[in-house]
């Protein structure tokens, strides 16, 4: 291994649900950055590709005690045990992979042949299938980003933590004879766009990065931790019911467990 690759990074996110307003900027920033296609009718949310999806969580109570909260869900880039995230090990053609260097679950779209096993494996529904050919209205292909390839029909895709931005940041660093990049040089499109500043992105292993401290917040939790997926996206909420909505609990289990 070259020296510069010795220090393993673990890119992750901390999303402050108290700040998240559910405005959807992260979703659109992601679509615009990553050339996500759209159809005339996208109201069937079961076949609508949104790498970043904002879920609405409700506390199930009646008016006027009803409460709700938004929860943006990118790919969790699960580490599982030693990088065996739920989706990576099941891919029969090794089209998706986990990198120990960055902690990112990567994918080769051109390798994927569309068996959808990874989608079955992902409990977060973070993976999407291209049921249709991606078509842009005439003229609108001009807005496509050349740093991300357009995915063809018949394959699976998902959030990449805007890995191309990492590649570009590294290119700039190499040009300037640097081996490391700064925290601000690699930020995902959703993080950058979030008008509420609710998303923080960085290297969870690096004490100098903001996420390193934020993830230790006593109100921080991850989605479905009990499954052992070991996700790299953390959420913060001051509301207990929201924190409890992040995982499944048996009826007899005290609600105090996650205080």
């Amino acid at each position, binding site marked *: 291994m070259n020296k510069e690759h010795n220090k393993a990074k673990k890119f992750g996110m901390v999303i402050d649900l108290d700040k998240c307003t559910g*405005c*959807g900027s992260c979703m*659109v920033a992601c679509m*615009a950055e990553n050339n996500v296609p759209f159809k005339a009718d996208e109201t069937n949310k079961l076949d609508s590709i949104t790498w970043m999806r904002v879920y609405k969580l409700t506390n199930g109570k009646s*008016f006027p005690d009803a409460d709700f909260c938004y929860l943006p869900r990118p790919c969790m880039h699960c580490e599982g045990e030693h990088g065996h995230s739920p989706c990576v090990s099941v891919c029969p053609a090794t089209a998706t992979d986990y990198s120990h260097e960055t902690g990112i679950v990567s994918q080769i779209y051109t390798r994927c042949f569309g068996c959808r096993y990874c989608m079955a494996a992902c409990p977060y529904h973070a993976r999407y299938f291209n049921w249709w*050919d991606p078509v842009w209205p005439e003229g609108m292909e001009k807005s496509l980003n*050349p740093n991300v390839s357009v*995915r063809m029909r018949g394959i699976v895709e998902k959030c990449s933590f805007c890995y191309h931005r990492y590649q570009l940041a590294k290119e700039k660093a190499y040009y300037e004879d640097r081996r490391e990049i700064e925290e601000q040089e690699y930020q995902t499109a959703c993080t950058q766009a979030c008008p509420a500043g609710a998303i923080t992105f960085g290297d969870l292993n690096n004490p100098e990065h903001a996420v390193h401290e934020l993830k230790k917040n006593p109100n921080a939790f991850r989605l479905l931790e009990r499954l052992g997926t070991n996700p790299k996206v953390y959420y913060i909420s001051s509301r207990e019911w929201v924190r409890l909505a992040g995982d499944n609990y048996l009826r007899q289990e005290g609600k105090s467990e996650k205080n």
Partner: protein
Amino acid sequence: MKVSRRTFLSIGSFIVGGAAGTALSPLPWKLTDDLSIWTQNWPWTPKPERGDVSYVNSVCTLCPGGCGLSVRKVNDRAVKIEGMKGHPVNDGGICILGLSGLQLLYGPTRVKTPLKRVGERGQGKFKKISWDEALAEAAEKLGALRAEGKSHTVACISGSAGGTVPQLLKRLLTAYGSPNFMSVPTMQDAYAVTLKQMHGIDACPGFDVENADFVLSFGSGIIEGWGSPVRMFKANSAWQDKKIKVVQIESNKSNTAAKAAKWIPARPGSEGVLALGIAHVMLRDGLYKKEACDGAAGFEDFKKWVADNYAPENIAAATGIQKETVESLAKEFAAAASPIALCGRGQGRTPGSQYEFMAVHALNMLAGNINKAGGVQIIPEPKYIAWTEPELDEIAQKGTASPRIDGAGSETYPHAKSLLNRLPQAILTAEGASPVQALLISEANPCYTLSDTQAVKKAFAKIPFVVSFSSYMDESAQNADIILPNHACLERLEDVPTFAGLSKPVIGLSKPVIKPQFDTKHTGDAVIALAKALGDKIAAAFPWESYEACLKETLGDKWEILNEKCFVAAEENIEAPLQFFTQECKTVSAEGDEKQYPFVLMPYDSIRLANGFIGNTPFLTKTVPDTVLKKNEMLVAVNPKSACGDSLSLKEGRSVMLTTPKGSAKVRVHLSEEIMPGVIAVPRGLGHTAYDKYLAGKGVNCNELIGPAEDAGSGLDAVWGIRAKLSNVSI
């Protein structure tokens, strides 16, 4: 035919040999490989071209927010809109609409060349014409009207009143001889009237929300797009960090209410009463800032009036809020060091009730926060456009002296600058020919955004000549006779004065990021060309050779810095003496009979639905939840406990007829615990009939179900809802 044994054997051997040889050659293997590579490079899957990357700064004009943009380009393509770091309004953040702005720029809904109507009005049948033809035809029509002495029958609707382009349009009308320049009213107009009445000055409000430590919002969609959206999102995050209490008063649990520390679901329409109830407690218990209020004009009368009429126990029935809640709210508000009360419902795109604005503003005055940190800032109107008054010929003098069609500035509504909401009625009630013989529409879509759209369309049908400057084929452009398409946002140069409740307003410069994609013309240039074609004194009033020259001259020493930074600070706040009021305004109630219409329908705003002149982009519509839109059907939110008669049972997803005194529409029911029983929440921003397949035909335009409610105080549209009923869909 009997194949001989030998032939059979030979052919067989040849085939076997061929198969063996083929297998030993690269043919099958390379072909298999290449076919799979073909699927990886299907020619119909776009491959975006790579190239030089650059960033161009500009300012967003898709809403009044005035955010700074940083647009990423690859060669000559704009590929991504991002927020400008260091911009005073948004500092790197950006809203969902701004992010998808390239879809408007490159989208199929653009008007690509000047168009002339060939079919019936509203049919959407146009033919392409050249710019020369289009301008000549418009000038000829306008010239003819002027020659007939009907110059005052020409009106103009502009999306906003500020900035050089609206001012050029206004100047054109003045020099031509018409007083009828109208802008699309928003809560800013209601606030302007409020400030005029309560401080006696012409000014705009600024809200120093960043420094407030208690926020009392009367239905303002703080994170729904109110004010300058990104700035408000950032303020909301700062409040979360600093644990600042926000109290949201609203019958529907909006996103703002969900983020607020406290949600008070008051009866819809009673917000003003509630504000005065709070004022009552503050005055009664001496909790107001005495040094600010004592001795102010009308204070004693106000005090007595409020004491007599707005005791918390007396307003409980009207507001549905218990006495104790009002008491504690008043105490908390008064106890805060820098509290602020906000109003303007939802995004504040409709002006609202004057009574409510004044009542809420009175709370700010009582709290002594006028022109204080964390309070309401009184900011003068922008003054950088200082052109010499145009010289008027005889026709123009006569024309501009005639009364405005909308009644703004008349004795009844002396403070109003324009009352667009009164225009359709004025046209429809006029005897004989329409009082508007020609209409220019710029950056506005009245056929979609005005209340009672059916009436608006009827009124439009009576106008013989309509010119649209729209960049997009919207509902109003579709009803025009001639379309003179403007460059879209990011294609054009334009000054963007941004107030939008900013405590430190800015003047931005929207710079062209890319070359115009189609055969469009800057509206500023089109106006100058029209003026030149009309000749004489009208032409003389427009001495500039182009819009760019005009803008450069207008901005003077600001030009250079604007070009460099894209923004400069506007004027600082000004002194504002307090003037209290007593019974000048009345509350606005929902139209319709309570017995016949058991529900109250309220439109609600969502940041994911653009509801103004700009229509939703495909990306935006993609984010709309399936509890709002399912296929082409709109869902309205209703509390499952709502009483709606025996004949109808509310069920999730059920199709029902929603009827109001203004019209009816088939919608689906979304049961929600986040809304007060008896209220129906209808999303604003759906139901377009124009645009493209990504927007047209989805849902119902709520403005079709709601009629305008003229505010007795300001004359502005104060409608906030209407009575409604739900019934079974007749088969």
